[in-house]
C-alpha cells in the first residue's frame, strides 16, 4: 500500500514530530501551560540552523544554536506570562506572531536551500544503508537520547518540582518551589526541543522555509493525544514513549490516507485529515470505555 520511500519518509518525519510532541508534553501536560509558541520556534530552529550551516558552521553546532534559540523563544513566552501576568495562551500567541518577523530577519529571505550543504546527515550516508534509511537511523538515536534524558530529568528533584508546579501550584509553592522559575525553565525546555526538531527537519528536507511552522502545534498535539490513546500514559516513561509512537502513527496514517487512491485524497487535504484524526483520537478512548462499561454492566 505504501512504497518503501513513503514508509521511511513517514517514520522520519514521525521521529522529528516525536521531538515536537516531547515539547508539547512538557508544556501541555507537565506544566498545564497551553503553549502555541511552537508554531514559531519550529521555523526559528530551522532558520538558525540553516543560516549557520550556509555560513559554514559545523551542522551539529548549528543545531545546538537552534536549540538555544528555541529555548530563548520559550523563555520569552513564559516571562510574558509569569512576570507581566499575560494569559499563557495569549503570551504564546504574541511570541509566535513576533517570531514570524524574527525568522524572516534571521534568514533574510523567505527560504534557504540546504540541498548542497553539509548537514548532520551527511557523514551517515557513507554507511552501508539505503538512502532513505539514513535519516531514520540518526533520528531514532536522537529521539532515544531525548527520551532517556527527559525521563531522567522528570525523575530528578527539579523535574519533580516542575511536575508539582503544573499539577498543584499552591502545594508546590508551599513546598518552597519557585513556580514562576519552573514555568520559565519548562517552557524554555519545551521550545528548545521544538527548535531541535525544526533544525533537523530543515536538514532532512533540504530547506528552511518561514512558513514551515504553520500547524506544527496541531500535529504535535495530534501526536501527543494519539499516542496517549494507544498507550495509557500512567508513568513518565510511558507518556514519553506515547509521544513518539503517536507521532509515527500519525505520519503513517497521513501517508496511508494520501496514498490510498480509492479515497481520492490529495496533499491539500492534509489539514482536514489532521483535524479528523485529532477528533478521533480525542473521542475514541471515551467511546471505548463507555462500550466496556456497557458490556460489564450487562454481565453483572
Amino acid at each position, binding site marked *: 500500500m505504501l512504497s518503501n520511500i513513503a514508509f521511511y519518509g513517514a517514520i522520519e518525519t514521525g521521529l522529528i514530530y516525536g521531538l515536537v510532541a516531547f515539547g508539547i508534553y512538557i508544556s501541555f501536560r507537565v506544566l498545564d501551560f497551553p503553549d502555541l509558541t511552537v508554531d514559531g520556534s519550529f521555523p526559528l530552529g530551522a532558520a538558525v540552523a540553516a543560516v549557520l550551516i550556509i555560513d559554514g558552521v559545523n551542522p551539529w553546532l548549528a543545531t545546538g544554536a537552534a536549540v538555544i534559540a528555541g529555548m530563548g523563544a520559550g523563555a520569552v513566552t513564559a516571562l510574558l506570562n509569569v512576570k507581566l501576568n499575560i494569559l499563557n495562551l495569549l503570551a504564546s500567541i504574541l511570541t509566535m506572531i513576533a517570531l514570524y518577523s524574527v525568522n524572516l530577519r534571521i534568514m533574510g529571505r523567505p527560504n534557504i536551500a540546504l540541498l548542497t550543504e553539509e548537514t548532520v546527515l551527511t557523514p551517515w550516508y557513507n554507511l552501508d544503508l539505503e538512502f532513505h534509511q539514513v535519516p531514520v537511523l540518526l533520528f531514532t538515536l536522537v529521539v532515544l537520547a531525548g527520551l532517556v534524558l527527559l525521563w531522567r530529568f522528570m*525523575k*530528578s*528533584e527539579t523535574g519533580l518540582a516542575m*511536575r508539582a508546579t503544573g499539577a498543584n501550584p499552591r502545594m*508546590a*509553592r*508551599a513546598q*518552597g518551589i519557585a513556580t514562576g522559575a519552573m514555568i520559565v525553565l519548562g517552557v524554555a525546555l519545551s521550545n528548545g526541543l521544538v527548535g531541535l526538531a525544526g533544525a533537523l527537519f530543515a536538514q532532512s528536507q533540504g530547506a528552511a522555509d518561514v512558513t514551515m511552522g504553520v500547524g506544527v502545534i496541531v500535529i504535535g498535539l495530534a501526536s501527543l493525544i494519539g499516542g496517549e490513546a494507544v498507550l495509557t500514559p500512567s508513568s513518565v516513561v510511558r507518556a514519553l514513549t506515547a509521544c513518539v509512537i503517536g507521532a509515527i502513527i500519525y505520519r503513517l496514517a497521513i501517508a496511508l490516507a494520501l496514498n490510498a487512491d480509492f479515497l481520492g485524497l490529495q496533499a491539500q487535504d492534509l489539514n482536514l485529515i489532521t483535524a479528523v484524526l485529532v477528533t478521533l483520537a480525542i473521542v475514541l478512548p471515551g467511546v471505548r470505555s463507555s462500550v466496556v462499561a456497557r458490556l460489564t454492566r450487562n454481565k453483572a
Partner: protein
Amino acid sequence: MITATDLTLTFGKGTPLENPALRGMSLTVNQGEFVTVIGSNGAGKSTFLNALAGEVMVDSGKIIVDNQDVTKLPTYKRAGSVARVFQDPLAGTCEGLTIEENLSLAIKRGQRRGLSAAVKGRYLEQFRTSLASLNLGLENRLGDKMGLLSGGQRQAVSLLMASLTPSAILLLDEHTAALDPKTASFVLALTTQIIEQQKLTALMVTHSMKQALEVGDRTVMLHQGQVVFDIAGKDREGLEVKDLLELFEKQRGLEITDDSLLLG
C-alpha cells in the same frame, strides 16, 4: 517563634466590594506553643494564615519568623520555615504523583533542588516508618498514585509531609473541616500526636469552639480582623464553650449569631 505586628489587609480596595479582612492583627506565637484559632466566618482566620504563609501580602504591618522579617517574601521563600496543611484534603498533595514522590517533594521543602534522583533509596526507610505510624497500611503502597487514596488518608499524608522537615511554625487551616466526623477525629488525634512528639510550634484554625478548647495549649479568638481574646494556661483549663461565649460577649458587647461556631 513567630511574631505578627499590626497587620492590615483590605481586599478589593477602592471597589464597592471593599472588604477589610485584617484590621491591626497582632499575635506572637512562642517556640513549642500549640495555638488554636477560632472566629466566625469573615473574622480573618484564613486570611491571617495566608498572610503568614505568604499567599497574600499584607498592606501594612510586620511578620517576623525566627528573627527574620518575611513580610515581603513570596510563599516559596518562606516555605523553609513555614509548613502548611490546607483545608481541602486534595490541596496538600499531588494526585498524579506517587506517595513516595509526594513525600520526596516535602522532604526538600525550602531547600535547593538539583538534578539528582528525587526519590532516593535512603529516604524510603524513613518514609515507611513515618507512614507505618499512621496505621493505614500506606507503608506498603509507596509506589501508588496519591489519587488512589481517600480524602482522610491524603490529609494524614499531608500532615506527615508538613512534619518531615523542621519548621518554625506549622499552619493548619481547618484541616479536619472537610472530612467525615470519624476521619476528622482520627486526623485531629494524629495532629496532636505529631505536634507533641516533635515539639512543633503550631497554629490551628478551627471552626469548632469545642475542638479549639480540647487541643492545644492556648486559644485565640478573632473577630473582624483583630484578636478579641487570647487565653492560655490556668485561665483556659476547664473552660467550656459557653464560657467562651460569655467571654466574647463581655469583651465585645456582642452576641454570637454564627450557629456553626456553637454547634461545631
